[in-house]
Every structure is written in structure tokens, then in C-alpha cells.
């Protein structure tokens, strides 16, 4: 480049400015894409907040639902006043929205604590469980997907395909109960419930990770099969690279893109699955808190949980989308 610029200063300058302009245009496009997605995310969260607010009110008087049937009229009025439900709906809605902006999600009726604090207390347990599940899913799915794709049609491939089908067809709570039966009740190897050391995490993480594992293995297998039939793979092989080098440097890099997206989408299903898994293993996380809020008819807490979980996966999806746009410029154009 240095030689070119001394020999043909004008052409080099022109080429440089074209490249700069291209980068600027691309950067602007990326910026626009990110701005658009952030705007959409805010809109989605606003919709979820509005929907949860009106869903609770449309389906009847929350005070009636919250109080036991034997409550007196005086108790009812006291609660109505305490919750601010005697004000016009629009005023309630505005104060609800402004509360959210100040991270004030209201007071839990059952625990008598701010709903936000309760969620934050339980969050580490759910993150630990989700991370454990994702690590387990990736540790099994990546080798399984690669082996199945490379040795397509072999016995190993067939067992991966069969395993994927069983993994996708088995509800998490059944897997959990069977794992408890085998490893806790019969073999006494691992604890059956509760949160503690690493040994407590193993069974819940496997339970929650199984479905994601099946999804990722299936997708990695099919996208790797597609990539391995491309011309550039044959070229790389004919250059004399070993089979493993070709798969690592050319195959996996190109097959990874759809897998990265699905991992982002899996966060949603992991959160949903956490509700069931935490119930099976009495795991003290947000999922268990959700079930507790439901059985106690704790409406403010439920509202807060729904909003909070929505924020988590909407933001996760936003991050995945932006990461994806960085990796693959075609995404922005569509």
C-alpha cells in the first residue's frame, strides 16, 4: 500500500476515500439498525407493561381476587385505598408507569416487601441455574452436532438424531423427576432439591438444559452439513489441510452463525423452563417465585415478574440481533 501511494498518490487517495466513505455508510447503517431495534425494544416493553396493567384489571376487581372470601367490606375498602385502586384508572396507569421508571414495581401482598427487591434476591439462583443449563447444553450439543454432521449416516449420527427427538419430546419436569429417582433416591449420589454447592446444581441444570441441548445439536448438525458441501470446503481439503483443520477453520466458523441466534432465542425458553425446573427441584429462584406469586394470588408481584422477565429476554434478543448484525452485514439490509 505504501508503495502504491508513492507511485500513484491520486489513485491511492481516491481508493482510500472510497473505502472511508464505504465504512462511514456501513457504520451509519449499523447505527440506524441499532437505533431502530432499541426503539422497537422500548415500544415492546411499553406494550407489555400496558398489557399486564389492563389484563389484571379487565378480568375483574383485583381487590376481590386478592382478598379471602370471608373479608369484610371495611377490609376491602382499606386495601383498595392502600393500593390506590380508588383513584381513576388513568391516574393509576400513569402512576404505575412512572413507578416502573423509578424501579418501583409495587409491594408484594404476601411477602410485604417491595416486589423488585424480592426478584433481585431470587435472581442469582435463576442465573446460576440458567448458566449451568446453557453450559451443559453447549458441552454436549457442540461435539454431538459436529460428530453427527461429519459422520453423517453413521450409527453415531443416528443416535444423535434419536437423542434430539427424545430430548425435544420429553417435558422438563418428567426428566427432573426421573433424575431425582435415579441419582438422588436410588443411588444417593446427588441431592434431590434445594440450592447449595455444585452438587446441587447438576440435576437441575441437566433438566433445564436438555431441551436447549437438543435444539442446538439439531441446528448445528444441519447447518454444518450444509456448509460441508460447499465448494470452499472442497478447495480447503484439496489444499492439503487435514479434515479436522477444515472443519475447525472453515466449517464451524460458517455454521456458527445460526447457532448463535438460536442460543439467544433459547434464553426465552430457558426462562420459561426455569419455572418448571425450579418447581421440580425446589430451587429458590425467580421461577419458583412466579409459582408462589400465582398460588398466593399476589398480583403486584406477578405484574413485576412478568415485566422483569420481559425486560430480560427482550434485551437479550436485542443484544443477539446487534451481535448478529456485526457478524453478518446482510442482516441489516433486509
Amino acid at each position, binding site marked *: 500500500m505504501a508503495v502504491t501511494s508513492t507511485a500513484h498518490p491520486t489513485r491511492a487517495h481516491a481508493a482510500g476515500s472510497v473505502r472511508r466513505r464505504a465504512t462511514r455508510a456501513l457504520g451509519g447503517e449499523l447505527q440506524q439498525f441499532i437505533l431502530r431495534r432499541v426503539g422497537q425494544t422500548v415500544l415492546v416493553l411499553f406494550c407489555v407493561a400496558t398489557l399486564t396493567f389492563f389484563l389484571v384489571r379487565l*378480568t375483574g376487581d383485583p381487590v376481590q381476587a386478592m382478598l379471602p372470601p370471608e373479608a369484610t367490606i371495611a377490609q376491602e375498602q382499606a386495601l383498595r385505598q392502600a393500593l390506590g385502586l380508588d383513584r381513576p384508572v388513568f391516574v393509576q396507569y400513569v402512576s404505575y408507569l412512572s413507578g416502573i421508571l423509578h424501579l418501583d414495581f409495587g409491594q408484594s401482598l404476601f411477602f410485604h416487601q417491595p416486589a423488585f427487591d424480592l426478584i433481585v434476591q431470587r435472581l442469582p439462583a435463576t442465573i446460576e441455574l440458567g448458566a449451568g443449563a446453557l453450559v451443559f447444553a453447549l458441552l454436549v450439543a457442540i461435539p454431538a452436532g459436529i460428530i453427527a454432521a461429519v459422520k453423517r449416516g453413521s450409527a453415531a449420527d443416528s443416535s444423535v438424531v434419536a437423542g434430539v427427538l427424545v430430548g425435544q419430546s420429553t*417435558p422438563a419436569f418428567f426428566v427432573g423427576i426421573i433424575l431425582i429417582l435415579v441419582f438422588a433416591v436410588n443411588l444417593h449420589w446427588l441431592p434431590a432439591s434445594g440450592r447449595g454447592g455444585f452438587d446441587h446444581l447438576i440435576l437441575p441444570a441437566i433438566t433445564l438444559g436438555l431441551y436447549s441441548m437438543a435444539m442446538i445439536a439439531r441446528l448445528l448438525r444441519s447447518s454444518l452439513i450444509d456448509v460441508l458441501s460447499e465448494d470452499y470446503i472442497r478447495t480447503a481439503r484439496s489444499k492439503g489441510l487435514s479434515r479436522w483443520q477444515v472443519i475447525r477453520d472453515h466449517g464451524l466458523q460458517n455454521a456458527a452463525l445460526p447457532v448463535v441466534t438460536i442460543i439467544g432465542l433459547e434464553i426465552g*425458553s430457558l426462562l420459561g423452563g426455569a*419455572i418448571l425446573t425450579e418447581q421440580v427441584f425446589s430451587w429458590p429462584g425467580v421461577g419458583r417465585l412466579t409459582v408462589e406469586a*400465582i398460588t398466593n394470588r399476589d398480583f403486584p408481584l406477578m405484574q413485576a415478574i412478568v415485566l422483569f422477565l420481559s425486560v430480560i429476554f427482550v434485551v437479550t434478543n436485542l443484544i443477539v440481533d446487534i451481535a448478529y448484525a456485526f457478524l453478518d452485514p446482510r442482516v441489516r439490509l433486509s
Partner: protein
Amino acid sequence: MTATIAPIQGAARPQSTWRSFLRALRKNLVAQIALGILALVVLVGIFAPLLAPFDPATQDLVGRLKPPIWLPGSAPGHLLGTDDLGRDVFSRILYGTRVSLLVGVAATLLSGLIGTVIGVLCGYYRGIVDTIFMRLADIQLAFPTILLALVIVVVLEPSLTVVIVVLGINGWMSYARVIRAEVLSLRSRDFVTAARAIGDNDLQIMFRHIRPNILAPLATIGTLQVAAMIVAEASLSYLGLGVPPTVPTWGGMLAEGQLYVATSWWIALFSGLAIVLTTLSINVTGDMLRDFADPKAYR
């Protein structure tokens, strides 16, 4: 469900499609077994009252938590043992088939109907309607079904109808997306242009020319959806938020069985196996349908 299903060659000739489907089935032993199990499950669902040796609700507190018939200490006649209230596990599983199939099929039909109408309208008219519904689909796909279902089931009183409707409005997105893509490509095809040229209006075109061509992808998604709906219903029942607890369900039995899993594992094991066997055969059948409709979609 990001993959779209390509237009099916020869879908306009149902006779030959059916015959080649049978030919594909004859070569696929796993799919034959799956279809066999599925047929059995449907028959069990229909004839549960005739097949069940006991009334599923009759309690027998003396004969509670008895093991299956091949184990020592079992009670006579109770093939898969009894539960904590002395009810026959086998009979309850047979009756549980009814709720699972009813919810699975009804919720699938409902979501299929909603999704197809939205998908056809979006693909055919495009514009602002398309944009709104597709964004809504994106949002709802990102949201865990179980959470939305829980919220709605809690604010409404849980009943069979509520469960079906809740699951039904939670599953329209995959239909809408696939059907929309299909209709987008169909609407510019020659036979649609020809139909418009001879004076067919939009409704006639949708019913006469578009509908027959979207039946194959509909059948594929629908089959896979039934399995997802059965698992969703079992999940709600497991959490005690599905159909009323007096009705025997597989998910409800699993929840009861878990309490006694250390001593009476048969309650949880057999009801769980019923779920897995059913969803597995539905998924195998669905995969086979998909491979048949579009061999390139998945491998």
C-alpha cells in the same frame, strides 16, 4: 421455526401425493411404529371408559400406594399400581389420554385457524396489516408461552375451555409466518394471475387457488404443534393451574407422583412415559411429514 417450507411440487394432484406419501411411509419403519402408537393412543382416548378396569376417581384408602402387579405387595387387578388415594394408576392414565388429546388437538386447531387467517391476509394484502401482525408474532415468539399462559389462567378461573383458548392464542405465530411466506410466493404465480384475469375476486382466489396449496405446510406444522400443546397442557396441570384437579391428567398425576417418588415411583414414571410416548410418536410423524413435503428443509 425460522425455516420456511418451499412450495410443494404436485400439491395440486392430491391422488399422486397421497400415493407417494404411502410409498415413503412404507420405507420408514420408525414412522410406521410412531403412527401405530398414535393410532393406539387415539383409540385409548376414545374408548377409555370401556378399557379402564376401574373408575379413575374411586378411592380406596386401604389399598393406597400399591405397586404394579408384577411386584411383591401389589393389589389384585391394579396393573400399574395405585396412587396415594388408592385410585388405579392404569385407569387414570387411560382417562388422562382424553384431556391430553382433546387439549392438544383443539388448541392446535384454534391456533391453526387464527394463524392461517392472519398468514393469508398478511401474505395476500401485505402493507400495514402485514407489518403489525408480523411484529406481534416476533414479540410473542420471544415471550415464553408458559408465562403468558400462567398469567391468563390465573386471572381467569382454570377450566378445560380456558386452557384450550389460552394455548390456542399462544400458538398462531408459526402458522402465520409460514403461511404468509407461502402466500407471498403463490400470489404472483401464473394460476392466480389467470384466475384474476377471468374475474375471480380476492375471496374466490384465496379459497379456490391459495387454500389447496397451503394444506401441506399446514399439516406439517399442525402435527408438530399437537405435541407442543400436549406438553404445555401437562406443564400447566403439573403446576396445578390446568384443568380442575378432579379431572385425571398426565401432568397432574406427575405432580402427585413426585410427592411419593421415593417410595411409590410408579405413579410418576408411568404417567410421564405416557406423555413421552405420545409426544415422541407425534414428533416422529411430524418430522416424516416435513421431510416428505420438503426434503431439503431439515436433515
